[in-house]
């Protein structure tokens, strides 16, 4: 099967006066139709920049400097062509026809993405009118249907509500309704449940999975919460400092992790089933500042398996180690390295 989205060696850097922030520095992953891909990683590892790059939403001083973002695009005549989103003009017609229609985004700050001066209904209808060839009455009907689908009580009435009048959970539902307005084939959700409570989170995750099946869409789900990843993802991409450390099916990532970072991260989270009071295994040190990126493998200063002269000398490439998992680590592969500065 051809992937719906295929990101290859994506590099997005920010050129600041103080120096270059290599926010995304060689990221590879695929998303297949109908698949839920979870991208997990700690704060600042480049999750949001990766998906903003996919949507061509990177603003100056940031720039995609390398790589491909291949997407199976359906043009107006319904023909499928594979286009490289990285090559598109961020303000051009093509990306605007894709954004919101074929690929929808639930951004990290949902409050910021609703306008406070327009009603929820106006905003959902606007998205529909922009992308679908329908009249206002039909757009209203679709908007009500979407709100109903996401479990919004009294959807007709809620068309007239403002986002700030809704509770956190309902606002998140309205956000999902808006993102689904045009039946996207790919939904990207950037930490959609981070600011909400556990029980509301469970509602939203259930809802997303139900809608994903109904619409047969693919989802890229971004979070730093390994619990949420375990609950929702089919396939997991583990990021650290702008690079993919490991990727694979959710079962393999949790039960057979290969990269020392994935292993250490999973060990360091407390388990609900472990007897109380045990000390937790830790990862020493902390995430370095973006300006003081380590040479070689970005994880090497904190890695228990650090091999001097190897891990700090070159960056390991992401390579398949079996028919499911890929790992970027010299423990598994000494040959294909990227020499620094090349």
């Amino acid at each position, binding site marked *: 099967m051809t992937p719906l989205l295929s990101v290859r060696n994506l590099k997005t850097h920010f050129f600041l006066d103080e120096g270059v922030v290599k926010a995304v520095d060689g990221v590879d992953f695929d998303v297949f139709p109908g698949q839920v891909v979870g991208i997990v990683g700690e704060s600042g590892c480049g999750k949001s920049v990766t998906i903003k790059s996919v949507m061509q939403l990177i603003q100056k001083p940031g720039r995609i400097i390398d790589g491909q973002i291949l997407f199976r695009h359906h043009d107006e005549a319904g023909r499928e062509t594979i286009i490289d989103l990285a090559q598109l003009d961020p303000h051009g017609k093509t990306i605007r026809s894709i954004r919101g229609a074929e690929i929808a985004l639930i951004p990290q700050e949902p409050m910021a993405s609703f306008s406070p001066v327009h009603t929820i209904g106006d905003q959902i209808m606007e998205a529909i009118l922009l992308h679908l060839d329908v009249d206002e009455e039909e757009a209203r009907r679709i908007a009500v249907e979407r709100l109903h689908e996401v479990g919004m009580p009294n959807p007709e009435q809620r068309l007239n509500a403002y986002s700030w009048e809704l509770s956190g959970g309902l606002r998140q539902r309205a956000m999902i309704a808006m993102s689904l307005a045009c039946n996207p084939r790919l939904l990207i959700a950037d930490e959609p449940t981070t600011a909400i409570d556990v029980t509301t*989170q469970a509602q939203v995750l259930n809802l997303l999975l139900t809608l994903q099946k109904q619409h047969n869409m693919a989802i890229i789900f971004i979070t730093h919460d390994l619990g949420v990843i375990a609950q929702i993802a089919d396939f997991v991409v583990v990021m650290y400092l702008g690079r993919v450390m490991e990727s694979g099916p959710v079962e393999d990532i949790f039960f057979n992790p290969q990269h020392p970072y994935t292993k250490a991260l999973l060990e360091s989270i407390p388990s609900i089933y472990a007897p*109380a009071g045990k000390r937790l295994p830790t990862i020493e040190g902390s*995430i370095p500042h973006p300006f003081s990126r380590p040479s070689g493998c970005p994880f090497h200063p904190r890695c228990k398996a650090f091999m001097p002269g190897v891990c700090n000398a070159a960056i390991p490439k992401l390579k398949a180690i079996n028919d499911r998992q890929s790992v970027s680590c010299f423990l598994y592969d000494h040959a294909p390295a990227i020499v620094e500065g090349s």
Partner: protein
Amino acid sequence: MSDKFSNKPYLLEVRHLKKYFPIRAGFFRRIVGQVRAVDDVSFAIREGETLGLVGESGCGKTTTARTILRAIDPTEGQILFRTAQNEVVDLAALSEKEIRPLRRDMQMIFQDPFASLNPRMNILDIVGEPLLVIEKMKDRKQRMERVAELLELVGLRPEYMQRFPHAFSGGQRQRIVIARALALNPRLVVADEPVSALDVSVQAQVLNLMKDLQEKLGLTYLFVAHDLSVVKHFCDRINVMYVGKIVESGPTDAIFFHPRHPYTSALMSAAPIANPRIRAKIVPLEGDVPSPANPPSGCYFHPRCPYAEEKCAKETPQLEEIAPDHLVRCHYAHELTLQGVAKPQEIIAS
């Protein structure tokens, strides 16, 4: 179970604590209502124990914590605290001046290690501030010695003393916050979401540190958190709050695996478990948390409760002991069989 502590005396006993915030409106700022942020809360913590406080956003966890430390004044109720001299005093009845000498015994660790440190003060001044202000330790050299000791205690190099907060990572800043909280040898430490703002890879370091310090210094913790796996790992007993009230209180394992209140059950079965083979087949709780300014009649949980009967809308249930050390606020607690966090063996069996 918490047998480990049953022969220890209570360090803190909170009785019928209430904190209502007035809602003002109009030109004359008249009081038009009350936010019942903490609404008749009672619980006790024994010396050396860790009591967890969990519940959804806005249920009153922070307000409870701050009221106990008299950072804000309670509306009603008693806060009985056992002093180092083994006297029990009611903090709620004391004036600010009378509380001051007790302040050293009770310290707070806040959620955000970035906001809770003054960026213009160096680490020596930040950690040494309580020594200067409360201990009146005027001698700078003496203060430096004590700060060096404290930094070592929390695993930071004493040489860092002259640096400013921006030079530290999140985990290191939280260590600094902890060092400051420990400066006066407190006996009660109230930690409000101490690891929530930290990266996953750093959380474990801080949790281990807090555990080690508890053992070394005999600290008693009131631990507020929303991450249920962290609470499960860290706490001996747990209070579950809903709209300003405690709905269930008991030993950690009982709360997680054998909850007796329908809200606790919903909360526990919604916990995202870091195991893809345990995908909860739960029916998530519908509806939203009611506003503490306008709570429902009877049991506050009845509009969302799958087991609610007529009585629940009419009568407010009381907190009742259902098993040793296990309290529940539900009319039907004796009749219901509830689900907790799914256990791996149950999943395999089903």
